[in-house]
């Protein structure tokens, strides 16, 4: 799984792909394809539509990869493209579920340890994720799949760090609530 920071093996792969190495580009696809599909699917909710968007993501990446100035930030750049294309597709279909209102920056209590304890079961998290709003789903998907930092998530979904912080906080609360309900049933 990619680290996202620093000059690592994935950065080398990105640089090689930028220089036109087809094998390196295939490697990038192999590395991110499934996780991107999972992320897009959490936004769109339609498997086949998500596959179309995924294909467009890779086409866009292929077209614009040479213009990427910082290969180390490839992961965030890639997710930003996927996010933008998925949101555009969602708007085009006019099936956009209501997004939660932006909650302005507040100091959130630190709940890291608690969440790690609760969100241990991937199957439950997956089912509970479906019941959250799109905004909550996308921040949590990036958090669970890529372990992205607040800064990185803010860059992907194009909003303020404070908003991301509060969304993650409220999303985790909702998720915990959903999981608790599932456990009680």
């Amino acid at each position, binding site marked *: 799984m990619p680290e996202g920071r620093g000059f690592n093996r994935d950065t080398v792969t990105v640089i090689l792909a930028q220089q036109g190495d087809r094998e390196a580009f295939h490697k990038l696809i192999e590395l991110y394809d*499934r*996780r991107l599909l*999972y992320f897009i*699917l959490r936004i769109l909710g339609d*498997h086949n539509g998500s*596959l179309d968007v995924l294909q467009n993501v890779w086409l866009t990446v292929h077209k614009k990869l040479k213009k990427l100035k910082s290969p180390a930030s490839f992961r965030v750049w890639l997710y930003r493209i996927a996010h933008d294309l998925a949101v555009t597709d969602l708007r085009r279909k006019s099936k956009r579920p209501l997004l939660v209102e932006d909650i302005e920056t507040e100091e959130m209590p630190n709940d890291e340890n608690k969440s790690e304890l609760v969100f241990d079961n991937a199957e439950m998290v997956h089912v509970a994720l479906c019941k959250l709003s799109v905004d909550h789903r996308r921040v949590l998907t990036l958090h669970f*799949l890529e372990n992205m930092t607040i800064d990185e998530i803010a860059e992907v979904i194009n909003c303020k760090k404070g908003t991301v912080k509060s969304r993650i906080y409220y999303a985790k609360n909702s998720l915990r609530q959903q999981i608790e309900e599932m456990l009680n049933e």
Partner: protein
Amino acid sequence: MNKHFEQFANQLLQQDKFPNEKQYEEYQMELTNALAKTEKRANLTTWTLGIAFSLAFIVAFIHHWFNLGSFVPGDDDATVITVIMGVFIVICQLLFPITIGVYFLWLRPRIIKLKEQLLDAKLAELRHDVSELRNLIVKSQTEED
């Protein structure tokens, strides 16, 4: 990266289960049945409206032509027949807004929505076929390599 986290992410990825061809067919069948049923109801509603309107018009015309008397039960020139005619016309007049409301507020939007869903389902099936084809191509290319 944390090994536990990596394992969790991988488990999360395993959770997506995609519909198969049979499920697409079943879904399309459900939509087609629902559409047929709603169209039948819409037809029935338009016929009801048409018949109610025609009958009310005919009854009012007969009543006026033969000058049969008042519709109001208490009036001097009211008879059993004119009162029944009056009740019939009132029922028909009540049916106009009801049937129009049912048609435009419920049935028509539902038909439009079902047609859109059916189109989406057909597109989804087509996309599914394309993705299957894509997988087959990738598989055959890998085997060739």
